[in-house]
């Protein structure tokens, strides 16, 4: 999509679509949405809230994901059987 040649309504439609579809656990889509329409949103105020909330969603999602990854790696062996059940690959030779 060449943004220079795309009509405003089409931009709005795509930006909205990306924003809503992002709720289906697709933070990467939110990130793309926010970056892609970042410059446009300065000229199109109606785009702005979708871009901002896409960015906020992506940040929250990634923050949560990283936090979970850190906690999981750190606590997996402490959680015992529960930790093993959550694991796809159980490391050999380590607690």
């Amino acid at each position, binding site marked *: 999509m060449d943004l220079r040649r795309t009509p405003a309504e089409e931009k709005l439609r795509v930006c909205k679509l990306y924003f809503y579809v992002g709720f289906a656990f697709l933070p990467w889509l939110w990130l793309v949405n926010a970056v892609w329409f970042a410059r446009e949103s300065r000229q199109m105020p109606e785009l702005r809230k979708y871009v901002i909330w896409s960015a906020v969603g992506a940040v929250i999602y990634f923050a949560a994901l990283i936090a979970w990854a850190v906690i999981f790696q750190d606590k997996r*062996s402490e959680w015992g059987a529960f930790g093993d059940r959550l694991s796809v690959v*159980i490391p*050999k*030779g380590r*607690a």
Partner: protein
Amino acid sequence: MATLAAMLALVLGLALLAVDTAEAQPDLFRRIYTGLDGNQDLNTCTRLLSVDKVIGCSSPEDGGVGALFHISSDQELDNFDRADHHSYITVISQDMFAKPTTLQRLGDYNKFKGALVYSPENTTASPWSPDDTSPNADFGLESANPPAWNSAGGGFGASGAEGSHWQNYKSRPIFYLTPADRDLVISRMTENNQLSTINPGYPLVAAELRSFMWGAKDAKTCLRRKHCDPLRSHNIWGTMQEYNTSQEVVMVTAQMDSLAFFHDQAIGANADASGLVALIAAARLLGDPMNSAIRTAQKNIMFVLFNGESFGYIGSSRMAYQMTRIPSNFPSAALPLTFDQIPYLLEIGQLLSGGEDITAYSYRNSARVQEVTGFLQTAAANLTSNMNVDYQAGADIPPASLRMILHEFRNETKREEFGGVFITDHPASGFTNSFYHSRLDNADYIDASSNATVEKLCNVSSVLAKSLWSMAFETEPPMPLQQADCDFVRELLYCITVDQTCQLVKDSVNVIENTPSPISRYVGVKPTAGTLTRPVGFFFNQLAAAIAVDRNVTYNSTDGCTANGRAPDYQRIRWRGTDVCYLSATFTHLAWSPAFDGYYSLKPLGTPSFDYRDGRDPRWSTWTESTWDPIKGRLFFVDAPHAELGTVLGGLAWFFLSLGIVYYLSTHITYDSHSLLDPDGN
């Protein structure tokens, strides 16, 4: 154009693969590496886990690699500090290895990546035992202050503790060098000046040791992850008369297994092969046709060989648990045996490292204990010239299956009244065996072929048989044959401790070894109920033959030995290569700790699922053996780090140069339309 690049990449990739796999380039591989014998025998320290302990060794997943460094003296250990290479596998003499400080000090170095242990030729090792000072103190009967029976032992508290030989050597593989491997390693190091110089020039002789263990943390965790298996094998038991519930039974037991720091070196010539041989020889003497009166005696005699005793009395805990359960179900629910039926129990421990005398230990000085020791003393006085039976009642019982049996009673009065006696070679001050549960408790140590050793064992067998004879009868008739067969004792001891390719073994089990070697009797993790390990099969046949009620049952080519025709409570055993079957009341009994009861019963055998339950008796064994990746040890040469870096950089330079040339050619040469490489002519 793209086609050319792809072909180049393919060729390069294939070339790399070919160098990487041994199969593709066997010659190159053989020129680089020399395998250690450990490839065939598992002469490595492996990892074992219980619910609260981890012991043994593991290499990192990709193996421990380092240049060889020789340590056979304190001076050489000090020199290790000045060794300049970045990683080392130390080659340690037995006596330096036996000092706990050696591995402690080495453990502080990051450059210490593993060890090869050897016994120097023609030397006598100093006392050493990898087991605890009070072996198996965590299991069976509890002692307020477990005596230090094993003064040569770890000496740093309970097994698995930091600094004991059975600690958890994380990421530090430790292998044993057989004499052939020792000579190879030492000669290579000598040729390369690595024995005489701390930092000789590169290249250095190096080793790669792989013994990666899957199990981690504790037994509960590794069982859940299926990274370990409970120790498990078979007990063997047999009776003189067909077993029935109304007859009293005299039980006589010995331990079948042994253990060692290195997996396949569990030779245990004194602990506990000596007691095992004495029991089988005594069974043979009583089973002799001349002594057939024993088969009509008032009391039955039951011989039991327990397995897994070295790791928390596994075999005896299982049998005693089944016998004390309500309803009890050993040997079967239909014909249960209980301890109320057993007036006397005699256990035989290690016999050969003391003098002539043996010591009898019991829990209390009960009337029945006095009777047992009385029989032993009378028999010893009548049959031998110089053997005394000393007597230790009420003191602590040394490590013995009896400790687990007494524990299972769960009733102090019953314990105190029980006629259980453990006989062994050492006084209450401690073991006389300097190498308890190590590979050095071997044929040389007990002098297995000497007349003195054979005579002592033979005497104990005779005394044992005569005592059992006295116990079995209410009014004792004369015993026609009173001397155990010393030739048989000699042969059996030789087969177990020196050469398992001997005729006696060949007659009963399939022998795969080509060269003489002792029978290693580590209990193992036999997962299925159907078949016996070869050592167990061998001892089963020996006991079955010893007490066979009929030694001349015709072998039937269609039905083999299993045909019916006699009481179902007898087994028929066919000797390999002969057409004769023995009819014998000898059976196997699965030996695994009651702590793992649910582990096998919930699912069909062979598909274990985790079920070690908290709240099980903490005095039961929970030892498991870690699963491991293939075990390998090999020698090669390492070059100086800067030379290695040069090789890698040179290779990279060559690679980019090639890319450059190809790129140059591709941009400066035009193809004609008939080019094979570019049929489109673009």
